[in-house]
């Protein structure tokens, strides 16, 4: 009988702990995300689509000179303004041969951006939040610094991804052309 009670106790304890964590998330994360989402949604609407598209046309020009713009600033603006998954439509403005690299670059940014701008990818917050929740327990004052570094490191990574994918795509297309 005692064993049964202990078993039931252990069983229900899983859900009690889960519920405690849930309450913690609800009061800690939800309010700030809702307010932030509202502000950014409104900002995006006020800035308007035309202005964003004008910028996209400028930023997606060809040439090595525009590489840092094409694979850092452009994905950042795309993900920030249009959010996942609409952000990939910015590929429209790019020359055909840069489209795969831009996609690679943009899609790799949809998680690093969530540390500071959760609106950009609300459905996949827990890549960041999962790890941040742990850091919050051990070193609460470190979370914001970590979010900023995640964002900056993300920008470096997407630039590298854009460049590498460009190179690989070029090699693959020329090989294909050679075969045919």
């Amino acid at each position: 009988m005692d064993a049964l009670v202990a078993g039931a106790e252990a069983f229900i304890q899983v859900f009690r702990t889960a519920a405690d964590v849930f309450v913690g998330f609800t009061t800690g994360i939800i309010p700030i995300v809702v307010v932030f989402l509202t502000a950014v949604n409104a900002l995006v609407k006020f800035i308007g689509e035309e202005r964003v598209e004008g910028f996209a046309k400028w930023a997606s020009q060809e040439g090595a000179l525009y590489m840092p713009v094409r694979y850092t600033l452009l994905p950042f603006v795309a993900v920030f303004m249009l959010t996942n998954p609409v952000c990939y439509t910015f590929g429209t403005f790019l020359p055909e041969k840069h489209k795969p690299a831009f996609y690679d670059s943009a899609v790799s940014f949809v998680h690093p951006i969530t540390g500071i701008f959760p609106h950009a990818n609300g459905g996949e917050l827990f890549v960041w939040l999962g790890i941040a929740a742990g850091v919050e327990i051990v070193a609460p004052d470190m979370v914001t610094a970590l979010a900023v570094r995640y964002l900056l490191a993300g920008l470096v990574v997407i630039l590298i991804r854009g460049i590498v994918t460009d190179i690989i795509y070029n090699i693959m297309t020329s090989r294909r052309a050679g075969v045919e």
Partner: protein
Amino acid sequence: MQALIERIGRSVGGVVGTLFQAGRDAVDLCLKTIIPFMAFVTFVIGLILETGVGDAIANGIKGFASSLGGLMIVCIICAIPVLSPLLGPGAVIAQIVGVLIGTEIGRGNIDVSMALPALFAINPQVGCDFVPVGLALGEAEPETVTVGVPAVLTSRMITGPISVVVGYLFALGL
């Protein structure tokens, strides 16, 4: 005068309307995607913390997640071109592994300095399932998609480990 009043009324109405709609979208997203996923995630956390499962997983993860080399191995495995599209959808795998590692960081089993490289190590497969759709959204030609898919997947084998190193460097001095 009347025209002025009308114009002020209209523009204020427009601003308030936009803000209200923004709020509605925000709450919508919260209710429909964030909270449901949160419920699922907290259940997983509850299981990890209260059952032996946690310790078993912890031992498995600790070996990989507490050193740069281990994270590198995780990253290379996730980036294998056959596996990466399978691991990608909805970032579910990355989110679960993120929660697992986060929980271990919270229990003190993994050092905080590993948090940033880990964020990149668990995620080299990001969007690998979505390449054709993403390219189609950018109005890419079918030939671009044919070459673009293997190009992105191959590129991840190289840029995945690089991203872990970048994460590690950015975490220095934290």
